[in-house]
Structure formats: structure tokens, C-alpha cells
């Protein structure tokens, strides 16, 4: 191996090698952290909402008829939807997971104003809510029809007396017991109003995708509204796209004093929720690809220049006994050494940049395998980039050595 002479040659001719090594280092630092951000975003985007996303859609029914009997209309609508072919269940609610808009509330385990509380997203549903959302009830029970009431702003009883919470919320409220033991426990809303936990669902996300406590969500047995209703419909598998226009048409025709609008599948809700994350991932992929491409071109350029500049030297080496593979190996090894300096510097830069980003943007620290993986990738990119010029060098004729011009 010619590591020693190659290294000494590089040290005597530093500038171009240092520039390429720096380019590799910067590429590595940016690539590692960009991929870490991509991983983080992908992980956030991949979290399950807990509901049957593939078969759920939602729409609004907004009345404009001043004589409309809203509560009766909702009952008729839900009855019609639930009896439509291809429909599994339906419910009127206020929002959906990751819809970027919903109802938030603080729950606490003791009554009082100075008691520590836990935030939760709230979905107002009836006894069909659990089935329509498709959430997994892992402890306790569903609501009964007798527990469902219309919200009465005149009443003193603002909140129903029972609630179904996500396992994550149960664990946040009662960290010293397992989530299933939270069934039957009392929490307090609005500081003093008691509510009894009657059921636990495995996963149910709140409406705000960027909220750090997104896994804290509750189903509350109550119907709310005066003129506008949001319906959530769960179809039988494979029927969703087919029944959406049918349901819209059916409801629009059943009562002319309202409009049906804002139909969205849960897939569209998810896409909307993470549109900026998705765009950022694409942008970062593009930036990383461009960086790698520019670095590769830099390596190709340096190697090509080096081969051209050293043609006579290569011919001399061939005359002195270097085989073609030996010349190829020389340039690959030279690139490996440059890349090694680059990735070693890049590793330090990457960790430093990540520490700053963790502190500043609350990102997750780099996974242990990111640095070695990036080093391998950049070594490989370097070797691939230099292969063409190195192969060209290996075909330099040894007879070049005897040419005087």
C-alpha cells in the first residue's frame, strides 16, 4: 500500500485536496443533519392517529334556513347515513385527529384552581363515536345512549359526567398506575367539574399535529351545534371513495335549507396536516442530492485534473513496473485518504451542528448509526466519482515516460 507516499504528496500539494476535503466535510455535516430532520419528520408523520384512516371521511352540513330544526336534522342525517349501503357507522363531532383545529381542555386529578393539569384534545361524540372512529377500546366500556345529551348553554351542567380517554392521557393523569386501572377514576374539568373515566382507547391523537402532547385525547358524550354539523363517516373497506358523492347528494336532496361542503377523506386530512413536513422532506432530499452531486463533480474534477497534470508521472510509474490495477488503486487510495479527512472533519461538524440544532430547535439527537452510515456513503460516492478518471489514468501508456514533449 502506498498510503505513506500518497499522504506526503498530498501534504506537499495541500490546497486542492483541502478544498475537496472541506467540501466533503460540509456535505457530510449538512447531509447527516438533513437526514436526521427527514427521519424525525417521517417519524412524526408516521404516527398512527388511532382511527380507521383508510375508511373515514368527513364533511360539513351548514344550515341557512332560519326555521331549521337542527337537532332533528342531525338525527335524520345520521340515521340516513348509517343506513346507506357501504356505510359502517357515522357520528357528528367537532373535529378529527390532526385536522389542525379542535377543542382543547385541561384535566386534573384534584379539584381546585392551583392544581397541576394535563392538556387533552376533545371530541364530542355519541355512543357511535368509538365505532365510527374505529378506535381500539382496550379497557372499560363505550358510552350508553342514555349518557348522550345535547349541550345546553343554559344548564349548569356544562360537562357530561363520563369520558373515554386515550391510554397516553390516562398515564399522564395517573402516572403511578397502569392505564387500565384509570377506569373508574375521577378527573376534573374546568377546575371543579368531576368526570369519571369509563373507558380507555389504545391510541387517539388530538387535532393539532405539532402539539407535543398530541397523544392526549378524549371522547366526550355530548352533541353540540346550532346550525352547522361536522359528520364523520366510516365506510366498509373499499367503499369510501364510491360513497362520498352518494352521501353528499343524498343529504343535499333530503333538506334544501343547508349546504354540504368541505368533504375530505382522512387521507386528505393527513396530507394537509403534514403538507409542510412533506415539502420540507422533499426540499431536504433535493438539497442533499445536490450537495452529493456537487461533491462528486468536485472529486471528478480534481481527479481528472490530477490525471491530466500527472500523465507523464503515471507513464513513468508504469515504466517502472506499475500495472494498470496498481495505477487504478493509487487514485482510489488517494481519494480514500481525501475522503477520510473530509468525513472525519465532517463527523465533528455534523455532531456540533446537531448539538446546536437539538438545543435551538428541540430536535432529537443523532442516532448512533448516522455518522458511520454517512461516512460509508461518502466514501462510496468518492470512490465511484474517482473511478472514471482513475481508470483513464490506468490506461496511460508507459511509453509516455520516454517522450520529451
Amino acid at each position: 500500500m502506498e498510503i505513506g507516499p500518497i499522504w506526503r504528496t498530498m501534504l506537499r500539494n495541500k490546497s486542492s485536496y483541502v478544498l475537496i476535503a472541506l467540501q466533503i466535510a460540509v456535505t457530510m455535516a449538512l447531509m447527516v443533519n438533513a437526514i436526521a430532520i427527514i427521519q424525525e419528520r417521517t417519524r412524526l408523520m408516521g404516527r398512527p392517529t388511532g382511527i380507521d384512516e383508510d375508511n373515514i371521511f368527513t364533511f360539513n352540513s351548514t344550515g341557512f334556513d332560519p326555521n331549521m330544526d337542527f337537532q332533528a336534522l342531525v338525527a335524520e342525517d345520521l340515521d340516513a347515513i348509517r343506513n346507506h349501503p357501504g356505510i359502517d357507522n357515522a357520528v357528528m363531532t367537532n373535529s378529527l385527529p390532526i385536522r389542525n383545529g379542535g377543542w382543547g381542555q385541561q384535566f386534573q386529578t384534584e379539584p381546585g384552581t392551583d392544581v397541576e393539569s394535563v392538556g387533552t384534545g376533545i371530541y364530542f361524540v355519541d355512543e357511535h363515536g368509538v365505532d365510527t372512529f374505529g378506535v381500539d377500546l382496550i379497557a372499560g366500556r363505550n358510552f350508553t345512549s342514555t349518557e348522550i345529551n345535547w349541550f345546553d348553554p343554559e344548564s349548569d351542567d356544562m360537562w357530561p359526567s363520563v369520558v373515554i380517554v386515550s391510554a397516553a392521557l390516562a398515564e399522564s393523569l395517573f402516572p403511578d398506575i397502569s392505564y387500565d386501572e384509570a377506569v373508574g377514576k375521577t378527573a376534573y374539568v374546568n377546575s371543579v367539574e368531576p368526570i369519571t373515566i369509563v373507558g380507555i382507547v389504545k391510541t387517539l391523537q388530538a387535532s393539532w399535529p405539532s402539539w407535543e402532547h398530541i397523544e392526549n385525547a378524549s371522547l366526550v358524550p355530548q352533541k353540540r351545534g346550532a346550525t352547522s354539523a361536522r359528520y364523520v363517516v366510516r365506510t366498509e373497506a373499499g367503499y369510501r371513495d364510491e360513497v362520498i358523492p352518494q352521501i353528499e347528494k343524498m343529504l343535499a336532496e333530503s333538506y334544501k335549507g343547508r349546504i354540504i361542503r368541505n368533504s375530505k377523506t382522512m387521507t386528505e386530512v393527513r396530507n394537509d396536516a403534514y403538507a409542510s413536513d412533506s415539502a420540507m422532506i422533499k426540499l431536504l432530499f433535493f438539497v442533499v442530492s445536490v450537495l452529493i452531486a456537487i461533491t462528486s463533480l468536485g472529486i471528478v474534477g480534481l481527479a481528472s485534473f490530477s490525471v491530466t497534470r500527472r500523465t507523464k508521472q503515471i507513464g513513468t510509474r508504469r515504466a517502472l513496473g506499475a500495472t494498470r490495477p496498481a495505477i487504478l488503486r493509487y487514485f482510489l487510495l488517494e481519494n480514500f485518504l481525501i475522503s477520510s479527512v473530509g468525513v472525519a472533519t465532517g463527523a465533528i461538524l455534523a455532531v456540533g451542528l446537531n448539538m446546536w440544532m437539538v438545543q435551538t430547535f428541540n430536535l432529537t439527537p443523532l442516532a448512533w448509526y448516522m455518522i458511520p452510515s454517512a461516512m460509508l456513503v461518502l466514501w462510496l460516492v468518492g470512490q465511484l466519482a474517482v473511478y472514471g478518471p482513475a481508470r483513464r489514468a490506468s490506461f496511460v501508456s508507459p511509453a509516455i515516460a520516454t517522450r520529451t514533449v
Partner: protein
Amino acid sequence: MLNMKDISKVYRTESVETHALRDFSLHVEEGEFVSVTGPSGSGKTTFLNVAGLLEESSSGIYELDGRDVSSLNDNERSRLRNEKIGFIFQSFNLIPELDIFDNVDVPLRYRGFGNAERKKRIERVIDIVGLGSRIKHLPSQLSGGQQQRVAIARALAGEPRFLLADEPTGNLDSEMAESVMQLLESINAEGTTIVMVTHEPNLAQRARRNIYVRDGQLEEAVPDLQVAAAL
């Protein structure tokens, strides 16, 4: 040592065919010091390239040290060059970024010698050429004569049977040329076969045998080298 029979070398382009060597036959005994002269474009360098396995002949038989080298592939030719042949070039062909030690080391690495063996050989040949005190110098820190001495050391380090010198004093003043010639003579005196291409009749005369090349063909035993060189 070197036996060429009816060697031809033809360079072809789309429109031109150049016969650089025609039916070139030469036998060099082991231990000989042969000078090769001839006018520019006569085929001296082509002969050197073919003899040194830097280029393949178009036809003919070439035996080096008793081995037919005509059918060897590129790797085999490279290894044979490395083991049997030492090269001395007119413009020294030292690698400017490497110091003297590393320059002499180049062919030894291709031979696959271990560190200790290489170091021993390098120090020995650098002592022979009288540059022991300059071992860490770069070529640019040496005079032309010293650089050619380094090139000679590099050629000798592998203990070749056969030295090919291409105008070894062509870039040197007369004093340095004389010193290099003395060095080559002493190397030849120790048994190494030398074939030297030169333009200078007075240097050619110092070889034991002189051959003259014209139009790619051999004219041996040139009677008047001064005249021949002028042709």
C-alpha cells in the same frame, strides 16, 4: 540477454502508416554496454520503448533474458519491466512531490518488497550515487546532475539485469554528464547490461559497442561516430 529478430513497429493513423522499426534485429550479450545513435526520427526511441517493454512490436521475435516476451499481457510486461529492467530517462522523470527516498522507493513498492528490504536497498543505492546526505530532499532542491543520479539510483534499486538509458546526459552540462557517464561505466563494470541511446558521439564511443539506427533499421559498427551523429 536481449535478442531481437526481425522486429517491426508500425504506427497507424486513419491516413498514415509510419514504419518506425523495420526488420530490426539485435543481440546484446549479458554485461555489454551498447550505445545507440542515429538521427532524429530514426527509431531510436521506438527501439528503446520496445526493448524496455514500454510498447509492443508489430511483428518479430523479442527474447529478454531467454524469455519470449512477444505474447505477454500488459500485467506480465509490467512485472517483467519491474524485475529485469531499469530505466534512466533524459528528463529524469522524478516525481516532484516525493523526496529522494520515496522516489527511489517507487519501483520497489511495485515489486512488493517489505519495509526493511526496501529501506536497505534505497540507502545502498543512494550511497552508490553519492546522495546519502540528500535523502529527504525534494527533486526541486537538487541540481540536474543530482536528479539524474537519483534516477540512476531508482533504476538500480531493484537490481535489474538490464539498464536502458534514454539520453541520460541530454539535459546536463558537460561536467555533470561526465560524472553520470562514469557512474554508468562503473555500474556496467559490475555486470549490469546497459543500452544507452544518445546523440553525443563522444559518449557513444565510450560504450563497448556502438550501433547506428537509420530509418528504423540497424547499421551496426559505425566507423565514424562523428559523421554518423551529424547525419
